[in-house]
């Protein structure tokens, strides 16, 4: 029964996917390409591309799209359900723990250490986002001259909008429209 197997496989991937959506990619590959031969490597590359291009959490995109390719809509539902099941149980357990014991010393200490860590990770992620937005590369650009002024324009406008407390969805949609306009007039290339 393909649906049950998909659920079980993606449940396993959900448990071992530690460190966010990207971490699920090698696990999905090992399962759907190497072990079960449900998909070819080139189909897997499609999954990887589409998960990054499509809005939505990358890991969920990947599970959903892999499920669709393997067994249609039912496959998508089973793969996604399997993928999030570990999160459901672990999340509830940890929430209970924090709500109940969050005010006592040790757990408070851990949270006090994690909070600055997250601030640092946001700042570090921001730099990756800036490289991606302005130089279209996720790591330090090799060639800084490859800079996109059109994208900088959108970024600055969006920053002004966010400081003026415009809604984030308006900002994202507006940026998309600006990207299209600037792109069609040749100021942004993709």
């Amino acid at each position: 029964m393909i649906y049950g197997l998909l659920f079980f496989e993606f449940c396993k991937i959900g448990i071992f996917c530690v460190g966010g959506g990207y971490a699920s990619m090698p696990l999905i590959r090992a399962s759907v390409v190497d072990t079960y031969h449900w998909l070819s490597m080139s189909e897997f590359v499609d999954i990887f591309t589409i998960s990054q291009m499509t809005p939505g959490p990358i890991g969920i995109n990947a599970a959903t799209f892999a499920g669709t390719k393997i067994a249609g809509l039912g496959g998508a539902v089973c793969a996604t359900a399997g993928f999030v099941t570990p999160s459901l149980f672990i999340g509830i357990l940890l929430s209970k723990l924090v709500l109940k014991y969050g005010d006592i010393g040790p757990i408070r200490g851990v949270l006090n250490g994690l909070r600055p860590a997250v601030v640092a990770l946001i700042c570090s992620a921001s730099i990756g986002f800036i490289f991606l937005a302005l130089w279209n590369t996720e790591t330090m650009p090799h060639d800084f001259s490859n800079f996109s002024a059109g994208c900088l324009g959108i970024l600055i406008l969006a920053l002004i909008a966010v400081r003026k407390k415009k809604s984030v969805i308006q900002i994202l949609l507006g940026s998309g429209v600006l990207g299209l306009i600037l792109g069609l007039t040749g100021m942004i290339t993709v």
Partner: protein
Amino acid sequence: MKEQRHERPDKNLRFFWTLFKSTFMISAFTIGGGFIIIPLLRAKYVDEYQWITDKDALDMVAIAQSMPGVVAVNSAVILGYRMAGIAGTLIALVATVLPPLITLTVISYCYDYFVQSHVIRLILRGMQCGATALIVNVGIDLLVKQIKKQLLLPLLIILTTFIGSAFFNFNVMLLVIIDGLIGLLVLRAAKYN
């Protein structure tokens, strides 16, 4: 930014609809993955609905980041549970997985068009720049807030974690575990809350 703890809203249908709607939108607009969830969570739950504080949002994302699974799903589960127990968790979870399910089912029928379309690429490129503005803004806000507290140890954690992650590409999980342990050992005092 609000610091005081907010009252839990009434658990009526309207509340569950709001929870569903907001989690659905956050999932639909998660662009570029991972930490972009923070500006989105903050705009909705801290600023707009005032269900949680900035500190709660950071705690949630810290826990979501440290557990297995996708950060967006984990934080939806944690937020749902916190706001309305198991029922809240299930609603938030379904609302988080629905947008990808809908989008990708549609896209799977026109995959070739979608990946090759110049128009879609341009729109996504623009949205990427917008997402960058959101995350840069939240990064600066939170950093300024921590600096204003003038506590040496948390600032040292920020600095070393930042260097480890941005310059040396250390594994994020590893950094989070180390910082959690440091917290357990030396940050138990109430002033660090």
